[in-house]
């Protein structure tokens, strides 16, 4: 039996795809269970620290003591477990070959649980993502996988964690692709989906089917409401920028303090929360209970504005001072309060044409998430999954996009990139990657290249290509690309005394079959990116490729050379790729 199992596992090891599939399932299950344990443990700890009817002094003392103890542990034993965990996860993927230490996972789990239970105004979702990514990394490395495979499994861990933390499997997949990898078309999609789905199943097995928030069904009362939702987008965008700038500014300030103070810096967060929480208990913790109340229209406008402002301050100080915890949850809280305030005012002024404040709180959550975390699609799907309310999707999209646009304009660097930047780590942003990939071949190709006729003799061609600097040349007959003749082939033929041979006799890709010529002649299309062209050059071993039409592979539109690509990126001038003078 054991032998059979061993043989099966050995067989599995040999197949990379099957291995990824099985590991995605295992990681999904394991991460799901760990995140559920994290949620439950934090909840129970919190109930112990803040018993029902407990004295008011607890609200001051518990966050201070919590931040002091976890601050010391983080400084002494788990330095990588501070903060949210999203920047650390991205750094692991893009810089450290997916490497996250088990010690960091342990530190994140326990310190964060204690910190959140003590009332620190941060969220559990970011740390869950870090824990999930860490577990995926630990498992993959212990199984002896290659760094590329480890890197591919880390997003699966992230998705599994978020699926369990928010009970939002689709948003978890989107988040892993949109934020963690910065690429919605990433090749790891399959394992990310599998992992998120498995984690979600585990969550349901243990905790049952319960959305994060129960919300009364809302709908658009009047088309004029789109205007109010647009205003909410503006308010949400400005609020998000304010929050992000405050957080980054405070963090910079804390980082300038002497290193020796690092272990008790988190106390600043604890003190802030303690003082604010003593007078306004809603500031404590992530505050999902209050979010649910507001979502159901239970609001007083002055109070929700106060809650939003205090939460922005408390979360910014807690995060900047180095406590363990994320900003997802607080983003939702801040967004819900801002939305309720805008909705409350709108409903007061135009009661007939507007829905209740709860509807705006719902949209506000997504708006703040899109503005702060800068993942607009994830936020739309997440709000849908959290509330299971489809009717509010269109206003949500409008509001999200406005907030996202304002946030992008007023805060150039997304929060996680900026946080990494402060640590001296330069993460590739999704926007930057997309920008690099967006330069098309069309923009840099030579549209009127030198071509040779299939009837040209090899000797004559050699004399023309001597100074060209390209590895191959297009051979064209009657406006049809017949193939590419390589320099090396011509030199070899001349050396063998076959100078009078015609090109058509020595051409490889002279077939009329489209697939055959496509296989024989490495080529690109005008809409391909330069990076794709570069990859294809590397694979085919030439420094020039024909650019052909997608509709007709024999139609030569131009050529693209290595020098052209380097030139497009500003690395070198076209001089290196100078063509010979046409005869």
């Amino acid at each position, binding site marked *: 039996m054991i032998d059979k199992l061993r043989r099966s596992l050995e067989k599995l090891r040999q197949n990379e795809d099957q291995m990824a599939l099985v590991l995605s399932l295992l990681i999904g299950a394991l991460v799901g269970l760990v995140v559920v*344990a994290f949620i439950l443990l934090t909840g*129970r700890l919190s109930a112990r620290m803040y018993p029902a009817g407990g004295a008011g002094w607890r609200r001051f003392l518990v966050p201070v003591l919590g931040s002091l103890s976890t601050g010391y542990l983080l400084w002494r034993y788990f330095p990588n477990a501070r903060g949210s965990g999203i920047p650390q996860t991205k750094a692991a993927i893009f810089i450290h070959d997916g490497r996250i230490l088990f010690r960091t996972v342990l530190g994140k789990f326990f310190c964060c649980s204690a910190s959140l239970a003590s009332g620190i105004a941060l969220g559990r979702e970011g740390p869950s993502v870090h824990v999930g990514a860490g577990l995926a990394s630990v498992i993959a490395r212990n199984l002896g996988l290659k760094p590329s495979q480890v890197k591919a499994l880390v997003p699966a861990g992230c998705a599994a964690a978020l699926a369990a933390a928010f009970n939002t499997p689709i948003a978890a997949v989107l988040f892993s692709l949109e934020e963690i990898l910065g690429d919605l078309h990433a090749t790891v999609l399959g394992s990310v989906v599998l992992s998120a789905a498995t984690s979600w199943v585990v969550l349901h097995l243990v905790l049952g089917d319960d959305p994060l928030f129960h919300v009364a069904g809302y709908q658009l009362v009047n088309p004029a409401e789109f205007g109010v939702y647009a205003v909410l987008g503006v308010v949400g965008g400005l609020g998000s920028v304010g929050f992000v700038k405050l957080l980054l500014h405070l963090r910079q300030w804390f980082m300038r303090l002497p290193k020796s103070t690092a272990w008790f810096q988190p106390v600043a967060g604890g003190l802030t929360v303690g003082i604010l929480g003593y007078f306004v208990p809603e500031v404590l913790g992530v505050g999902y209970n209050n979010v649910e109340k507001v979502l159901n229209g239970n609001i007083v406008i002055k109070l929700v504005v106060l809650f939003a402002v205090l939460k922005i301050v408390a979360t910014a100080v807690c995060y900047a001072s180095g406590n363990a915890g994320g900003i997802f949850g607080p983003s939702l809280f801040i967004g819900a309060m801002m939305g309720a305030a805008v909705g409350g005012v709108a409903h007061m002024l135009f009661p007939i044409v507007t829905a209740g404040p709860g509807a705006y709180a719902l949209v506000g959550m997504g708006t703040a998430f899109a503005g702060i975390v800068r993942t607009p699609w994830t936020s739309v799907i997440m709000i849908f999954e959290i509330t299971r309310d489809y009717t509010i999707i269109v206003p949500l999209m409008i509001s999200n996009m406005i907030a996202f646009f304002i946030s992008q304009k007023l805060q150039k660097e997304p929060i996680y990139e900026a946080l990494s930047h402060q640590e001296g780590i330069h993460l590739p942003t999704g926007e930057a990657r997309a920008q690099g990939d967006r330069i098309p071949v069309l923009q840099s190709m030579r549209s009127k290249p030198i071509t040779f006729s299939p009837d040209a003799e090899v000797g004559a061609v050699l004399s023309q290509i001597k100074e060209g600097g390209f590895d191959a040349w297009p051979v064209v007959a009657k406006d049809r690309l017949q193939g590419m003749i390589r320099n090396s082939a011509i030199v070899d033929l001349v050396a063998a005394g076959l100078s009078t041979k015609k090109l058509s006799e020595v051409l490889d890709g002279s077939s009329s079959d489209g697939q055959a010529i496509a296989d024989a002649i490495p080529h690109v299309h005008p809409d391909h990116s330069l990076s794709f062209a570069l990859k294809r050059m590397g694979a085919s071993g030439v420094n020039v490729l024909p650019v052909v039409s997608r509709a007709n592979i024999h139609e030569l539109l131009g050529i693209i050379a290595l020098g052209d690509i380097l030139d497009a990126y500003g690395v070198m001038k076209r001089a290196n790729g100078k063509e010979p003078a046409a005869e």
Partner: protein
Amino acid sequence: MMVQPVAGRSFLATFALVLVAIAGLFAIDMFLAKTDRAESHIEATRLFEEGQASLKNGDPLKAVDRISDAITIERDNRDYLRSLASAQLAAGESADAQTTLAGLLSSNSTDGLANLLMARVLVREGRAADAVAYYHRAIYGSWKVDVEGNRRRARLELIDLLAQQNSKAELLAELLPMQDNAPRDLTARVYLGELLLRADSPPRAADVFRGILHESPSNSTANLGLGEAEFAQGDYRAAEKSFQTVLRLAPDDPKGRHWLDVCRELLQLDPTIRGLASSERWRRSLTLVRQVRNDVDSCVREDSSEELKEWASKADAALKTPAKEPRTADDDFEANLDIAEQLWQIRQKECQPQASNDSALALVLKRLAR
């Protein structure tokens, strides 16, 4: 592609370790979830009880707050949701109560208490016609405890509403099943009899009161009800006896005194009572004309309608007849009744203030009109 195993731990061992971790974590999670549910239940119960106490102490806003908190912990607890709706209703938050109840009823439309509460909300909003349907669903819906008692209470509430709305036919329709399954409680049966009277069903009311008096002959309220039922059926002599019994049992009963006075007056006035001598009938018919003529006297002016003036003149003419019984007493009797009746009808149309409906004169003329 070959994967290089890490030195020190075999591929199989790592795999096994992950599987063991999953199994172990599953057990831990189940334990934590169980603990969480138990502790959450305790907390939810505490909040719910606080809410109930606040509701009893007349602080429905606090009750709404506490019960909402309990619901946040145990979202599917229908008892909490029903209590929340009650508290919202008590706090005047009818719209919120309606939303809460709509949620409850969408998952179980036969929920008796939820339907009853929804009916109350609608009554509060002045939508009595819509409320009736919810009352019916409450009456025929499902109840967790004391099914019959709750259904009867729901029906009584509906009956109250219908009585207030003066929807006599619907009221009687609801009262008949109540009469078939008469409650054992005497107070409830007295109330049933009173409602039957309001539903214009005095014979059934009389049956109910007689049933009560059979068990409890000294029940003054039942005697009063019986008297009213007999009175409504035109049996004034029986009614007089019943009202006399009421005053014997409760000498200070103002209602009994009033009805007895009316009854006596009516017995003195009504010319259609059986067994009266012809002369007496004639004399009473003349008294009736006189009382009606006196009643309209202040109303007859220059600008009064010709019809009123004409019938007032006829009444005056009738009143000039000799004090002794004329030979044509029977004919005059009919003519007098006709004059009194016509004049009364015109008075009702043209004169202010309107005459009291329960005065002896009004009751006699009403009877004549019937």
